[in-house]
């Protein structure tokens, strides 16, 4: 017996340092993001205080709104769904060394294309109509990614500017569509309801959470698999790490860039289709409060890996859904949520800043 205990003890003594080292490594991996989020909330609290609101009340209402009951949780995941799509869109292009900051526009054209397919056909069985509408969304988003892609690959036009400009074009083109040719009767700029055969089922009544979230989760797995386990994913990452090295290694950098940006656009477009088919059941002008930008923040906070995206999307979904409760209960303008999001991005932008803050704060163990 004593022998056994001693054995266990020595084993534990050997394992413990290894376990601690591993734990430290894992914590260090997510630490910059965690600190960035905490610092952002702290800075946000200062803004709230300076403008005469109580941060405790505001954040309290936000958390209760986002996670306090089944309805809140449902709305949190509803808001997280499109963000997962746009985050994956940003991430995929980023892995290829491209900054797709136009996910908002790709999401809009995807949403409109899906709505168009949804209202144009009647009497199709759902197992035909739903894939058709989703495909239309992905194709439209992909096309919106293809334009900056070909301009970048063939002419060298900077994708940050072109994707952003095309976002504005997408906004105005879809706005035109729902104000003129496809406007439903009434004064709201929106399309008519899509056919019931094109609607994605709601999975948590009475919240708006729809089956689109399953698509999002599947896409997370697919993205991870593609990037890590396939030749194509390897080529995309190689291009992102060093285009010149990839080129000399026999990879066609142009081809990879075009494919990556088209896939990126298609992902955002699919997210837009999911919103139309699952949440609103029609295209409403201005339905996106900026999911494209949320996606960018989420991809960064998620450490630019698909699984991290899933976690970060829930956090940002909570900001959106809890933010509405916060505004209703405490009167704090909803835009504080955007300020928080921007602060998180700024802190994540410079990991060295976080390390610097930690050192200053005396947390040497963490920053070593």
């Amino acid at each position, binding site marked *: 017996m004593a022998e056994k205990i001693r054995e266990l003890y020595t084993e534990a003594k050997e394992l413990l340092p290894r376990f601690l080292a591993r734990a430290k490594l894992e914590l260090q991996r997510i630490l910059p993001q965690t600190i960035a989020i905490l610092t952002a909330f702290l800075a946000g609290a200062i803004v709230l205080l300076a403008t005469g609101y109580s941060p405790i009340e505001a954040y309290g209402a936000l958390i209760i709104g986002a996670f306090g009951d089944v309805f809140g949780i449902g709305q949190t995941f509803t808001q997280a769904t499109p963000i997962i799509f746009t985050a994956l869109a940003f991430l995929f292009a980023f892995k290829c060394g491209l900054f797709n900051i136009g996910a908002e526009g790709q999401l809009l054209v995807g949403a409109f294309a899906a709505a168009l397919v949804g209202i144009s056909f009647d009497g199709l069985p759902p197992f035909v109509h739903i894939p058709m509408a989703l495909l239309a969304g992905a194709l439209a988003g992909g096309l919106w990614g293809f334009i900056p892609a070909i301009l970048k690959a063939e002419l060298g*036009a900077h994708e940050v500017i*072109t994707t952003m400009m095309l976002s504005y074009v997408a906004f105005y083109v879809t706005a035109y569509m729902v104000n003129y040719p496809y406007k439903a009767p009434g004064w709201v700029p929106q399309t008519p309801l899509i056919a019931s055969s094109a609607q994605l089922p709601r999975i948590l009544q009475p919240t708006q959470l729809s089956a689109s979230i399953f698509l999002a989760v599947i896409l997370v797995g697919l993205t991870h698999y593609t990037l890590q386990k396939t030749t194509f994913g390897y080529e995309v990452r190689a291009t992102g790490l060093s285009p010149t090295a990839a080129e000399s290694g026999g990879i066609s950098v142009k081809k990879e860039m075009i494919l990556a940006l088209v896939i990126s656009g298609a992902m955002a477009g699919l997210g837009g289709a999911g919103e139309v088919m699952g949440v609103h059941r029609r295209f409403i002008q201005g339905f996106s409060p900026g999911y494209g930008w949320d996606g960018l923040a989420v991809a960064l906070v998620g450490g630019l890996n698909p699984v991290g995206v899933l976690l970060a999307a829930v956090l940002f979904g909570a900001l959106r859904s809890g933010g509405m409760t916060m505004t209703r209960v405490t009167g704090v303008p909803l835009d504080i949520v*955007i300020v928080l999001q921007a602060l998180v991005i700024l802190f994540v932008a410079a990991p060295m800043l976080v390390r610097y803050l930690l050192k200053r704060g005396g947390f040497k163990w963490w920053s070593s």
Partner: protein
Amino acid sequence: MVELLDIINVGLFAASLRMATPIAFASLGGIFSERVGIINIGLEGMMLTSAFTGVAASYFSGNPWLGVLAAVLAGGLLGLLHALLTVKFIGNQIVSGTGINIFALGFTAYMSQIIWGSRGASESVQGLKAVSIPLLKNIPIIGDVIGTHTPLVYLMLIVTVLSYIVLFKTPIGLRIRAVGEHPAAADTAGINVFKTKYLCVMVGGMLAGLGGAFLSLGHLSLFVGGMTGGRGFIALAAMIFGRWTPFGALGASVLFGFFDALQMRLQALGLFPPQITLAIPYIITVIALAGVVGWLKAIPPSDYKPYVKE
């Protein structure tokens, strides 16, 4: 068709110069930043924050020139933030710029609600009055185009000339360009690389701030949410189109300003749905950018890599 031709007159060209002003200011800001090797995607956010700050300062003080000053300071502060994050902490330049853009969007909308209780627009404030240049305004046609404007339009023209002189005709400009082109060599030659970068990115922010002040105090006399409408990005396109030179950027800004002015007139004409005319400047920007980079081969003045001292 007669109506369409009617909008092409001297007034259109005066409006082109007016609408070129915010783009040109931001574009000059972009040049100062990129000449020291820092990409500044945050110009859009710097303009928007300054547009807001300018109106807020004019609202509380009643003096639009204090508004302009506040706008310049706000732009400079955001420039300092961008420089801190990208130079000192070697953060990603595009991510930092995007963060600044989103911050501007949220912060200005939030503060609008705090001050005026409205997310969409501020109250009207004291704006800048247009001035006429005595002799210039009497010249036929030219006088109509450039004779009467808000002072910021003339300031923009002066700053363009000054930027050209500073960047290309003085030792300071030589140092600035050296820092962007070859920081290690500049360092060896005794130039303070970091200080130069900080200063230039801050100056860039201040110039973008002037562009923002023009929009809210020179053009409208109020703040409207998201009123920059992508002009920061159009300014980046103008900078590339103008090959990172002040006069080139001014020329490109006037071109983009022309389409902006044309768009406004088409909209006023009411022949086309407003959504279609509103999209024109963005489409033109994409075409111009693709054309110039593709066929004229514009080579950036820096590789934009962060400089780390050995």
